């Protein structure tokens, strides 16, 4: 039994119809509902029928977020360890068919990055690599966790899908959270975006959060890329996935990311346009659907937009990010995964958070946990 069983009871077309058949009454019912909201409520909230209710959704999302998370925003920073990758992902700068310089950081380079990152006050770190098992496999990652554990309160990982025992090993080395985005839940089109490499295996990726749950990870990050397929449909599958996981692995915490595709090497524009308005509808729908899920915002979004989103349901933000290995000390832009769109320093982002009446939280975990 895994999410795959449940996923197979749904079809892309069926989910599409479910969303596009919703009317204003469905939206009003979803908004007025007391207690637990279900998948149909979520479908109503992301449907075109909900667009006239955007301000109301935003206010509700704001109130729910404050109640659960208070007037605070958590900060984290990504550390890109390597851009080596054997996959082709048609939207990603690290794709194996891109003729770019490849680099995997060694101990000395990593510790230089750590020193720079720590000088800004970060305690929550997200490690990122491409998929290259010989150079950045589980043993390399375990080693890196050992090096970083004394310096950070929380270590997260955004790398290839792994086996349950790999996750267990990494947890023993101090890992406490893993981001694993399905990219799209459109199984047929998934193959076109991922024509080569281990990542081609849709079902293996789909069941990765199950393996993480079984391994006893503290936190799992879910998400679909915005810009590949219809975001209303993809996000409804994320909602389905989340509800399944929360029932199954009730001791795990969940977060959702909304990576909107950015220009990258070999990739110019997304298939599907996701407007700022759509983006706001999606964040608020996730929040109203689930009061407890963390919602994370990266520097893929621009500074003005990020400042506005702070009050709409976001709980976690990155700041001062670089998306190339060695980016904090060497900054060679030819190595990067995608272009960032908010290049303020962490200090400037923290000042913006304070100016909006929120406390920037650098530490909300501890290695003893």
């Amino acid at each position, binding site marked *: 039994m895994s999410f795959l069983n449940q996923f197979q009871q749904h079809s892309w077309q069926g989910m599409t119809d479910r969303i596009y058949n919703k009317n204003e009454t469905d939206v009003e019912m979803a908004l007025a509902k007391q207690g637990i909201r279900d998948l149909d409520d979520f479908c109503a909230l992301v449907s075109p029928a909900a667009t006239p209710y955007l301000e109301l959704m935003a206010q509700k999302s704001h109130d729910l977020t404050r*109640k*659960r998370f208070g007037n605070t925003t958590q900060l984290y920073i990504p550390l890109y360890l390597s851009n080596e990758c054997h996959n082709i992902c048609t939207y990603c700068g690290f794709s194996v068919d891109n003729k770019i310089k490849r680099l995997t950081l060694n101990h000395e380079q990593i510790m230089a990055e750590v020193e720079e990152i720590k000088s800004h006050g970060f305690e929550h770190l997200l490690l990122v690599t491409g998929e290259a098992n010989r150079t950045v496999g589980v043993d390399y990652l375990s080693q890196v966790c050992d090096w970083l554990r004394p310096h950070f*309160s929380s270590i997260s990982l955004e790398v290839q899908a792994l086996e349950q025992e790999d996750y267990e090993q990494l947890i023993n080395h101090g890992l406490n959270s893993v981001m694993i985005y399905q990219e799209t839940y459109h199984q047929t089109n998934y193959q076109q975006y991922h024509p080569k490499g281990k990542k081609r295996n849709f079902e293996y990726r789909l069941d990765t959060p199950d393996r993480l749950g079984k391994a006893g990870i503290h*936190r799992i990050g879910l998400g679909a890329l915005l810009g590949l397929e219809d975001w209303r449909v993809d996000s409804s599958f994320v909602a389905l996935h989340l509800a399944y996981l929360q029932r199954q692995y009730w*001791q795990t915490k969940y977060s959702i990311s909304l990576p909107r595709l950015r220009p990258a090497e070999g990739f110019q524009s997304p298939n599907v346009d996701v407007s700022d308005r759509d983006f706001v509808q999606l964040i608020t729908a996730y929040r109203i659907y689930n009061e*407890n899920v963390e919602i994370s915002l990266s520097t893929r979004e621009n500074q003005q937009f990020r400042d506005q989103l702070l009050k709409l349901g976001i709980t976690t933000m990155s700041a001062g990010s670089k998306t190339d290995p060695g980016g904090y000390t060497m900054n060679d832009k030819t190595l990067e995964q995608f272009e960032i769109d908010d290049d303020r320093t962490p200090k400037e982002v923290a000042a913006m958070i304070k100016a909006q*009446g*929120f*406390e920037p939280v650098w*530490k909300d975990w501890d290695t003893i946990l």
Partner: protein
Amino acid sequence: MKTDSLTIGDREFTSRLFLGTGKFGSNQLMHDAVVAANSELVTVALRRVHLQEQKDDVIAHLDIPNVKLLPNTSGVRTAKEAVLSAQLARESLQTNLLKLEIHPDPRYLLPDPIETLKATEILAKEDFIILPYINADPVLCKRLEDVGAAAVMPLGAPIGTNQGLQTKAMLEIIIEQSNVPVVVDAGIGAPSHAAEAMEMGADAVLVNTAIAIAGDPVAMSEAFKLATISGRMAFHARIGAKNKQAQASSPLTAFLTQA
């Protein structure tokens, strides 16, 4: 009014309003709210503070005369993890007061009764003054008392929900039976809820979300202070019984007094 102090372990408190320190829009606001509440005991999540460093900003803002820190173990999932973080808390914050919070469920943050009982038993032997956060379960409260809890902290409703005393029927039994102070924790969303708990005979209340996310946290903090005091006064003054109907006549027994 004569002094009405509260003793937990070997500590004495005049104020019966304890504060949580999460969710505030700034550390200064948190500080001002604690001062306005006149609170003498504030709980701090270990996960939020830099235990190894001297200069933690949260702790610095709680350096207020007469205010004691109550470290909490929020984030731990088992008794084993709780014991470890309790020891760390005592060492780095120099206090043996401990709010024991073990919630393996990160969604509703509901406490695990089995792990809490186990950890209380271990930590009581290590001379901690333990205030365990638990569901409003009267039997569990007695069991915790037996193994050395200094107080019990049953919830009024799931933490952070502001729903008020949803567990009222169980809280009444707990208050009636307890030999240690009962601190109603979690779910208190308005000063009227705090007053209600105090009127019922709770020894203290712990409030966080309702103050931290109020439009004016400092004013709300003062409102909670007054509600807690007034609820306590009403408890001492003995509230008259409620009646569903007026008792003007006695149709069935009136004949007894008739000549």
